[in-house]
């Protein structure tokens, strides 16, 4: 187990290096630099600024310098936010993203799972068809449509929850964004769980369990639950990644100071270090997500061995 962990950790490093290199190359291939703007600066000042951020050096030297900083865990200074490092931006923004992402996935798993199981317990009934129709709609409607609708209903009509105006921030500010982010995943998970549960209940080993005279509860919990969850685990890897990108949009709508809005701002302003840092962050989170999925697989299924 320890060897497996170590090996996975080491194999993540080349992936991150590739991500860093690609991000670096793409940014430097994009025309324009961080300090070109409509206001033409005095040439001297521009040179001074570029020298401060080592932008006057040859590209390969900038690249090596960047990698060296990375190896020391330093993502460099932001170009647009003066006197702020990328590390600081992440430290401030990431907790908000993790909070709404985590809440969204948790909500989607619990609620989607329950709806899916309920639907599968009576296929063809109202308990099945109503939620499944809603789920189909939920999957088709993107977050940026759901979010304003939620704001309209819960914030502007009912005045139950704040819609934005993040000041200091309380958990109540995170509820609507989490919900908006969660709904499509909830819908998708409900459908996956329903299909999987129906499939599993037709499995031969469920019949064996019944043939032993076990009650419904024992059959469901001991024999049906685990295989039902397996497709969910495979879905969770990609889902974690798309929750991250989804939260970029949600942050914009609700005006949350997560890292997503810095990502967009950084890209528009050619803030090289900021964009590279956040790209690496997303890459690392996706790697961690997939790693967790693999661990879940091995934990759930005795046929999966952790020695690849």
């Amino acid at each position: 187990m320890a060897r497996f962990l170590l090996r996975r950790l080491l194999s993540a490093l080349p992936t991150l290096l590739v991500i860093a290199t690609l991000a670096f190359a793409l940014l430097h291939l994009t025309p324009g630099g961080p300090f070109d703007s409509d206001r033409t600066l005095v040439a001297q000042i521009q040179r001074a600024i570029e020298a401060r951020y080592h932008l006057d050096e040859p590209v390969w030297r900038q690249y090596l310098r960047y990698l060296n900083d990375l190896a020391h865990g330093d993502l460099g200074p932001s170009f647009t936010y003066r006197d702020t490092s990328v590390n600081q931006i992440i430290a401030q923004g990431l907790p908000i993203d993790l909070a709404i992402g985590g809440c969204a996935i948790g909500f989607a798993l619990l609620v989607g799972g329950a709806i899916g199981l309920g639907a599968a317990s009576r296929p063809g009934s109202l308990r099945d068809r109503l939620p499944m129709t809603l789920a189909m709609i939920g999957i088709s409607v993107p977050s940026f449509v759901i979010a304003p609708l939620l704001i309209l209903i819960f914030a502007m009509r009912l005045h139950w929850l704040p819609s934005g105006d993040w000041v200091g921030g309380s958990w109540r500010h995170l509820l609507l964004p989490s919900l908006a982010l969660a709904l499509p995943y909830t819908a998708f998970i409900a459908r996956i769980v329903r299909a999987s549960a129906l499939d599993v209940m037709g499995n031969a080993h469920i019949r064996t369990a019944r043939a032993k005279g076990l009650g419904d509860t024992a059959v469901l919990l001991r024999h049906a639950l685990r295989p039902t969850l397996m497709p969910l685990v495979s879905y969770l890897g990609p889902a974690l990644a798309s929750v991250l990108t989804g939260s970029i949009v949600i942050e914009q709508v609700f005006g949350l100071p997560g890292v997503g809005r810095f990502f967009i701002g950084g890209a528009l302003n050619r803030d090289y270090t900021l964009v590279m840092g956040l790209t690496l962050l997303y890459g690392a989170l996706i790697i961690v997500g997939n790693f967790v999925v693999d661990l879940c697989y091995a934990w759930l299924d005795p046929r999966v061995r952790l020695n690849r």
Partner: protein
Amino acid sequence: MSPEPRHQALLSVRGLGVFRPGPGGEVAALRDIDLDLQPQECLGIVGESGCGKTQLLHALMGLQSGNVRLAGSVRFRGEELLGASAQRLALVRGRRLALVFQDALSALNPYLRIATQMTEGARAQLGLSRRAAWQRAATLLESLQIDAPARRLRQYPHELSGGMRQRVLIAMALMCEPDVLLLDEPTTALDVTVQAQVLAVLRELRARSGVAMIFVTHDLGVLAAIADRVAVMYAGRIVEQAAAAHLYATPRHPYTAGLLHSMPRLDTPLDTRLSTIPGQPPRSGATSTGCAFAPRCPLAHERCTQLPVLRCADNQFPANGTVACHYDGPAQGLREIWP
């Protein structure tokens, strides 16, 4: 019409039918099944693949899958099981009737240890402690010639060989010491040596505990080693039923005669090709229009367009068995109809 159940019968089946909705109306997987199983008896059921043997065993335990309509009656010690409540069925399953499934790999839960799967039934049904159930499982595995049972119990199904899984399934069915053991091709997946071992164990089990059995197979040779009585199935119906010795000596149905004819025998010269019955069994399930075997039967004649009902095979000796065939010539002639 149907014979009265003999009152001492352990398991008594009358007019059992299994119907599934099909594109052009209901399709019958089984029709008009009548069976009696006496205490301590071993009843063999034989028939080609797809004739409904597995469906029959599942229906006896109320384990039919999907959207199925059942007809008729299945009584265990006089108690009706067809349409019984889930609670009643749960008390019967595993403890009174236990089933050894055909496909051992898919019948076992891949996510649970052998020990969990073997002991959960006995713990729920008999209230055995974890320890006592584990001990019983180990003893049963050992009696089925599985070495290192303690280690096997800690393993998962995929870590066992096919033969071992099949024996685990048999041991699992024996955990609650059932009154009736239903065996669905328990030896088909095994190689010849293990097959002989398993048959020996089952025979020994009968001698020791007197458990009654229904032994399903498509191999008449295997039944010769264990069955007291044999029922022959064709296209969802029983076409002949007789004491084993009687059936092997004088088959009364052309299909039975064909099955016996295609059996390899010790005195068959090695270079002769084994004959099989030409043609295919019908795919449409059990019908009520004429004899289902007619397209393959050398003796088919005009009366065979009417459904042959089960009748006494031999009017002078009614106990010798029943047969569903319009042919009423001398039984000796049946052997010669197959080339």
